[in-house]
């Protein structure tokens, strides 16, 4: 390995500004914090070579990036007035074409997770709650009117695929939101701030937490009770304590050795926390748009960022006994009972036969599929028929109830809503 010849380096390399980070020296609240921005020594050799100040820095040569308020490092999150000076925040505001009414200070507040700052007046919890209800309302009413026959389980899965934490995390990433390594009052307000120190017990998901989860070893988790008690995606809600107890063993198994939680980077738990924090930021941003700009703007924002994503709903289905379900459907709807008929076949005695089976109810063909055996083709055809039933749509551009909130809206025509699923488990 070659030795680094620092004395031969050009001046440009030596004066390059280090990236934003907090050295340990500035972590203590004191007089030094008042005049200096966060910065880092490039190497010990340069520091000794160039030191002209008493604490080892040439402040004339390395001027501070930004003067920090005296109490910055003692605060859990950046002060709101610093939002106006952050280039990242302004860039994010411009990149998303956010309305002028939304101030940078509010945008900065949406980036502070409750795990970074517990004070609800400075974190994004309240905005995130508003945003979550708005996003889920718009997605749910649109799915309900667009696909009026979806079974509840599929509806939940579609809701989670549009507005759950995973897609919102992707949305936040596509917006170019970066996160700070650790939260604090000195970090750039344009960075998403959350703590990896564990789920905050005070930070719960919005909804009921069931008593059965704690009291009973086993209980019937039905779809009907899920509609009432669980969250918008049909998932059980644990309170913070139960959640941590369930999550931590998996994190330890993945981590393997005895590294403390703040040292392990990129394991299952930290990824979960990062996903939740990013999703919360997107929700909080939606909530802040609603708070500052109103109903129509937030609806347009949700439409263009959340509902515009592509999802193939036909891939969400998983059947248990499709033929039985189809027979029950035909009985319920007073159709003629379904009959599977062979439409065509090839290579019956070969290694790779293909059978094309259609399912008929009277003279109408309900579904058709090809398969390597008669049974497989029949099951697949029944599945296709059921999917065709469940995925009925009155059209692409259906009117949703929130269309009526416009002042000069046409009178409402009742939307077709199906009576429910064929077999509910």
């Amino acid at each position, binding site marked *: 390995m070659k030795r680094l010849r620092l004395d031969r380096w050009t001046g440009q390399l030596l004066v390059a500004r280090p990236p934003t980070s907090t050295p340990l020296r500035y972590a203590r609240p004191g007089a030094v914090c008042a005049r200096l921005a966060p910065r880092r020594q490039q190497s010990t050799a340069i520091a000794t070579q160039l030191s002209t100040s008493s604490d080892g820095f040439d402040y004339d040569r390395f001027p501070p990036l930004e003067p920090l308020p005296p109490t910055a490092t003692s605060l859990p999150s950046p002060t709101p007035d610093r939002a106006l000076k952050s280039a990242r925040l302004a860039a994010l505001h411009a990149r998303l074409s956010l309305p002028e009414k939304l101030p940078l200070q509010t945008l900065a507040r949406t980036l502070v997770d409750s795990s970074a700052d517990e004070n609800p007046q400075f974190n994004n919890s309240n905005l995130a709650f508003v945003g979550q209800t708005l996003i889920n309302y718009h997605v749910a009413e649109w799915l309900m009117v667009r696909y009026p026959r979806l079974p509840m389980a599929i509806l939940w899965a579609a809701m989670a695929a549009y507005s759950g934490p995973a897609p919102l995390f992707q949305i936040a990433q596509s917006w170019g939101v970066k996160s700070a390594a650790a939260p604090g009052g000195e970090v750039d307000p344009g960075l998403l701030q959350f703590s990896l120190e564990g789920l905050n017990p005070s930070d719960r998901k919005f909804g009921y937490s069931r008593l059965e989860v704690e009291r009973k070893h086993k209980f019937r988790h039905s779809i009907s009770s899920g509609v009432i008690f669980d969250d918008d995606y049909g998932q059980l809600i644990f309170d913070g304590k139960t959640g941590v107890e369930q999550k931590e063993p998996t994190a330890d198994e993945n981590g393997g050795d005895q590294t403390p939680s703040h040292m392990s980077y990129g394991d299952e738990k930290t990824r979960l926390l990062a996903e939740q924090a990013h999703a919360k930021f997107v929700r909080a941003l939606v909530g802040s748009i609603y708070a500052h700009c109103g109903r129509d703007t937030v609806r347009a924002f949700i439409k263009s960022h959340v509902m515009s994503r592509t999802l193939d709903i036909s891939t969400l289905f998983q059947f248990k006994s499709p033929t039985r379900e189809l*027979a029950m459907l035909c009985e319920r709807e007073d159709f003629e009972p379904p009959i599977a008929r062979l439409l065509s076949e090839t290579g019956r005695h070969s290694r790779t036969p293909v059978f094309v089976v259609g399912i008929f109810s009277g003279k109408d063909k309900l579904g058709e599929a090809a398969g390597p055996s008669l049974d497989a083709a029949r099951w697949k055809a029944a599945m296709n028929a059921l999917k065709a039933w469940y995925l009925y749509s009155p059209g692409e551009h259906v009117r949703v109830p929130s269309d009526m909130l416009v002042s000069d809206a046409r009178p409402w025509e009742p939307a077709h809503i199906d009576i429910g699923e064929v077999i509910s488990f």
Partner: protein
Amino acid sequence: MEAQLTRRSATACSGLLSCSSRSSSGRLFAPSTKTVAVTSIRQKSSAARLRRALNIPPHPSFVLKDTSADRIIFNPPSSEASVFHTPFKFLPKSDPRRRQNIAELFKSQATGTEGTVATGSPSLDPARLPVVKKWAWEQKPHHVTAEQVAEIRRLRTEDPVTNSVHKLADKYNCSALFIRMCVQAPKEHKEKVKAEEDRIKARWGPIRSAARAERKRRIDMLFAGEL
């Protein structure tokens, strides 16, 4: 086009061979000169031949007979029907598509031999197509009385070995599923059957167990729509 050319040469070959075999009655092989002539294929060695080979006439459905007005040519390749195309029967009463198509619905019901409205496929009379497998309800109609159900329960509980599910199904002319819905075997019998199954499964080698696991996985994937 490539396939067509080779087929033409192939038919020519067989014709020549049959002639030779007929002329040389009793001889197994044709003369060598004739065989050489048979195997020669006309290549696209010159530009003119290549141009002629690539000069394909359009498919008949693309040839417009009436060019007086603009038309849409709908000639999709054969593929699986999309599940997003709702069959006519599945449209709710309020759907405008049902009202639009009502004339055609009457027409198809009146003639009977016309194809389905939903798929639009012509000339297939569903009644003539072979049935793949009858549904359980069709094979075994509902005819078992409450007394018989009580008797089934009693027999199965008293002696589950003699009165197996399939024996009872045969006896009462109902499906095995119906017997299973009526009654469950006693616990000790179930445990005995399970132990016997486990003993058999323990003797399976790696190939058979892998094949079984793969078959199960394939069915699961089929029901999840992944196959």
